[in-house]
């Protein structure tokens, strides 16, 4: 896995292009920055409304809007690398071949520390993406990405339902993933019934349980925990449960300085 100076990582899809957080001084001291999940071609994203508020949570179905690989490599990545950030590039796609192609081209780009494969999209089909939540498909995609990733470590962000999370983690590490990200969005629905993901503090106990399941089943596999983390105490609960690092997502939408604050607190601020 990658070597992190601090265990607090910005979660995929919640840190914009990086520039927005940097303008607020909100990337200071963080361990790594994960990009939104990139696809080969630009994507406009799904229809509005994309996000709804629920108690202590957000239900979201953004449809992975993004610039596509070309523009990302030309305009976003160099800036991130220049800032001295440890960059993890998340990727997604409509086919195994697209995942592989994106991985191949990212492996040639300078400055990337790791790839992360998004295997947890609860609304993949609605947005024309490959639904790789089933462990079998997840392993296939991971194997294809690992083959192209050369020396880059590959993180597999697995579906986080208690029932399948340990099995998912096992098959993706068998397929070559260096670590698993556990605690992504829970399958939920937008108020109008469209499939969507639930994130935020509401899901923390579910995510923590998932981390526990994976740690118990696969003690040798590094786990990056996420799901509802918004304080240093939350982060510590995941680290205490055996996670090697944590990702902060939704909390950034509410307070963009959250990750930097937690990173500072863990680095020796008041406990």
């Amino acid at each position, binding site marked *: 896995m990658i070597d992190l100076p601090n265990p607090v990582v910005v979660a995929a*899809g*919640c*840190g*914009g*292009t990086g520039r*927005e*957080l940097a*303008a*607020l*001084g*909100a990337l200071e001291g963080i361990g790594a920055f994960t990009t*939104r999940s990139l696809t080969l071609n630009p994507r*406009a*994203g799904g*229809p*509005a*409304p*994309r*996000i709804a*508020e629920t*108690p*202590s*949570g*957000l239900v*979201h179905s*953004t449809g992975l*809007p993004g610039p596509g690989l070309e523009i990302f490599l030309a305009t976003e990545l160099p800036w991130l690398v220049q800032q001295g950030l440890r960059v993890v590039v998340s990727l997604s796609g409509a086919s195994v071949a697209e995942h592989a192609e994106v991985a191949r081209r990212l492996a040639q780009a300078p400055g990337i520390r790791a790839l992360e494969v998004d295997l947890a999209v609860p609304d993949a089909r609605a947005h024309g993406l490959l639904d790789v939540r089933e462990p079998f498909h997840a392993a296939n995609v991971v194997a294809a990405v690992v083959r192209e990733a050369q020396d880059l470590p590959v993180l597999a962000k697995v579906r986080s339902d208690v029932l399948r999370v340990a099995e998912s983690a096992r098959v993706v590490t068998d397929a070559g993933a260096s670590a698993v990200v556990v605690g992504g969005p829970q399958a939920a629905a937008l108020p109008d019934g469209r499939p969507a993901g639930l994130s*935020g*503090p509401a899901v923390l106990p579910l995510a923590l349980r998932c981390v526990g399941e994976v740690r118990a089943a696969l003690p040798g596999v590094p786990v990056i925990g996420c799901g509802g983390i918004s304080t240093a105490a939350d982060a510590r609960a995941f680290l205490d449960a055996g996670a090697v690092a944590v990702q902060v997502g*939704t909390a*950034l*939408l*509410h*307070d*963009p*300085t959250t990750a930097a604050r937690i990173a500072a607190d863990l680095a020796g601020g008041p406990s």
Partner: protein
Amino acid sequence: MKAPLHTTGEVLSSKRVGAYQHLTVVAPGVAERFRPGTFVAVSVDGTRLARRALWIHGVRAVGGHGPALQLVVEPVGPGTRWLAERPVGARLELTGPLGRAFALPKEPVATLLVGEGYAAAPLFPLAERLRERGCQVNLLLAAPDERHLLSALEARRSARAVTVVTADGSVGRRGSVADVVAGVLAQAAAEVVYAAGPVPTLHAVAAVAEQAGAWSQTAVEQPLTCGTGLCHGCPLPVVGEDGVARVVRACTEGPVVRGDRVRWAELAGTRPGAGGPA
């Protein structure tokens, strides 16, 4: 452009005027960075993660505190009601100023400013800047009724000519912006039109401006989750300068965009801004 700040503000005063609660909030650094058309994203009570966007209505020096933000809140839902009830001294987590401001003309031209409901808020400080540059300022203020008419008195001071329309005719002419904007624009011989209000109003203004050969700058409200460009929850369909259709973030590439660049028809399905006639 100066970077925004995330900070804790403090409510210095809160008073009701008609349908709106006017808040004065000290938020060190934010007021100093303000340009008309930018907004703040405010956190409300504990369970609600989405932030609430509020236009910056102005900046006012308050003795012993430095410049403070003036905000106008229409209590329409849980978040805005919570904000309207904050007592003096209450603390507010906020981020700002956010978004693209109104672009100012390089020449001293005649301008028309069209505002509906609370959304007229950013037009007052804009009027000031325009006058400083020697631009002629004409104001068209609209609201469902008198209670929702923002600062009509203040308007007389900041503009050469002020037209008021209300849906119920309680002040000014009875009608809507769409009914009168072409006439007002012609009379003012405005070369630049600035507009803020519900989507249908902005659409009407942009169309009339285009017909008249005027530039338009519209301040578009879309439901914002973060307000800071992180979540992509605020899709705004536009046509780029290259003529290519794109979806941008309303909070970051907006809220102020050129009226002729917005694909208004595709916005119709999204929720109209509060404060407009139902």
